[in-house]
């Protein structure tokens, strides 16, 4: 991965909060992230760590007035998202950047036929007539390995299975050949057998068209099999980043490490799992310094100071920790 090239997406030290009843929820606390051209980047983290907020911030989809940006910038294809005007932003959405969401059930308009929804988006960004748009939509669906696209176009979303709906969302996303696709937990609601098919599809199409993907999930295993590079988030901040294989096989941040060790896949059946004590911090009352401090086995005085996202030597990895783990932990899958 060359870093000299202009990245598709670059988020720099983004901090963002939601003012609510009794205080502010600091959802993002200095997130920095970049997605290069054609790259598949994973964003993992536990629930509430700010993954979706990051994604939504990129497209400025958060409800206006409900949030405050404290600092940082989002740079999309070389343009500053927060200073774009409404029209330019609308033009970018869907054409340059597409997004798919977790719940395929609700992400499509329940009372509009699939074909019309696809045509709506196609016509929005391309100067074609409705009939032409429907033809495009049909071939798009065929591309997504949907057996009977003409029939599917004529159906309502609720008449389709979850996997099918997610394929349609993917078709929608690729309809204008975007440079970046943000996929917010696209397979969490799906069954494993279906998930596998959807992931295969997503990967194939992204590679085929050179689309960069920001893939959000909380499933480490999916990341390990799907992404080129990975960012690990915790409490609204990036804890660690790096190429997938390296990061998974030798996590530097205690949090990443603990997370991986706590997975039942990596443990002896029946034996206690090395769990992380405690629970995620309250975002409206974040402690000083490293947010993981209170649950970290190697925390000490220095951790009251917030660690910067520092570079490791050479292999493109960075982590935000004063006391990174050095030892190599190898996670191996048992043979099936």
């Amino acid at each position: 991965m060359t870093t000299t090239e202009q990245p598709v997406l670059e988020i720099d030290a983004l901090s963002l909060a939601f003012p609510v009843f009794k205080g502010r929820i600091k959802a993002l606390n200095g997130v920095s992230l970049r997605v290069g051209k054609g790259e598949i980047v994973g964003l993992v983290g536990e629930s509430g760590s700010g993954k979706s907020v990051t994604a939504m911030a990129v497209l400025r989809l958060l409800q206006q007035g409900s949030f405050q940006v404290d600092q940082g910038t989002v740079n999309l294809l070389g343009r500053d998202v927060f200073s774009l005007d409404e029209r330019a932003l609308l033009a970018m959405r869907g054409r340059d950047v597409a997004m798919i969401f977790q719940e395929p059930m609700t992400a499509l308009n329940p009372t509009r036929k699939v074909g019309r929804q696809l045509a709506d988006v196609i016509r929005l960004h391309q100067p074609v007539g409705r009939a032409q748009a429907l033809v495009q939509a049909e071939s798009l669906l065929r591309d997504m390995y949907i057996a009977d696209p003409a029939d599917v176009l004529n159906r309502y979303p609720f008449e389709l299975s979850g996997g099918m709906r997610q394929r349609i969302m993917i078709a929608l996303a690729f309809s204008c050949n975007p440079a970046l696709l943000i996929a917010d937990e696209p397979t969490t609601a799906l069954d494993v057998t279906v998930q596998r098919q959807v992931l295969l599809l997503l990967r194939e199409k992204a590679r085929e068209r050179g689309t960069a993907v920001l893939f959000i999930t909380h499933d480490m295993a999916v990341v390990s099999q799907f992404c080129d590079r990975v960012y690990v988030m915790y409490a609204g901040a990036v804890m660690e980043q790096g190429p997938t294989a390296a990061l998974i096989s030798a996590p530097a941040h205690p949090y990443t490490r603990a997370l991986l060790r706590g997975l039942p896949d990596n443990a002896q059946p029946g034996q206690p799992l090395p769990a992380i004590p405690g629970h995620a911090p309250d975002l409206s009352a974040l402690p000083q310094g490293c947010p993981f401090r209170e649950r970290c086995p190697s925390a000490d005085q220095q951790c009251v100071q917030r660690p910067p996202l520092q570079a490791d030597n050479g292999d493109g990895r960075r982590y935000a920790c004063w006391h990174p783990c050095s030892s190599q932990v190898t996670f191996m899958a048992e043979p099936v």
Partner: protein
Amino acid sequence: MSWLQVVRKRLFSLVLVVIGVSIITFIISHMIPGDPARLIAGDRATDEIVANIRARLGLDLPLYQQYWRYLSGLAHGDLGTSIRTTRPVLDDIAAFFPATLELALVALLLATMLGIPLGVLSAVYRNKAVDQVVRTISVTGISTPAFWLGLGLIVLFYGKLGWFPGGGRLDQGMAPPTDITGLYLVDALLTWNMPVFFNAAKHLVLPAFTLGFVHLGVVARQIRSAMLEQMGEDYVRTARAFGLPRWVVVFRQALPNALIPSVTVLGLALGDLLYGAVLTETVFGWPGMGAYVVDSIQALDFPAVMGFAVVVSFAYVLLNLLVDLLYRWIDPRIKEVG
């Protein structure tokens, strides 16, 4: 369920409701103290005359027999004879109903045409000045006593300004249009009688506004909350994420879906309008069922009151059926259930 089954189920419950309504109104109207026979007979009537009248009306029979007579009449579409006017109740209602219906429909039209955009605006600009203004209007509508508003409008627009007529459905000397539906506006259009159309429309303005204003509040409130709900849905986020402009999202995506739950509410509200007309009618001297039923209650005219209740309940259930069918038609999801 196919729509045929829905219809069948509804018709079945229609019978139940009509019987139930007739029982309730029968009991209540017979609880009202006072002797209608004496009322007809007049001040100085002798007991003999009163007894004679009572016998003619069947009021001397035991209650259950009276009810049975009523019910068997009902089965033949006979609502009995009005005590007060000595005419068949059905005829009386047929004479008054179109006026009420016309008023209610125009008010409904007014309320929805204004209420929907207001509700949408209010939802889109939630908690902004627009929202506050719309909500103030809608709360004022809901909280205004219709009879009071009507009085004020008459004094202002008829008494002081003379812009609108002060009552009735048509000017004196203007012949009503050929009776096709009983709705003057529709009949005038059908017979292409423009002077009558405009005159009837002019007469409708004040009462329809009075009635519609209250309803407007209900509509705007309902649309606002349905819109807010829809705008929070994921598909709206999807639409925005793919670059659909805000107003396209609002009107093409969210509004149709917000209308679906609102249809039920608004359909039921038409029922409310029908009897909400009662007060408005008294104020405007609108020749509808409102004044008729108020007078009937005061005169202990049981058959008339019961007839009114039965007819309106009937209309109400029928309306519900229509709303149900409409609902199935506009919401593709319904068909899937089952």
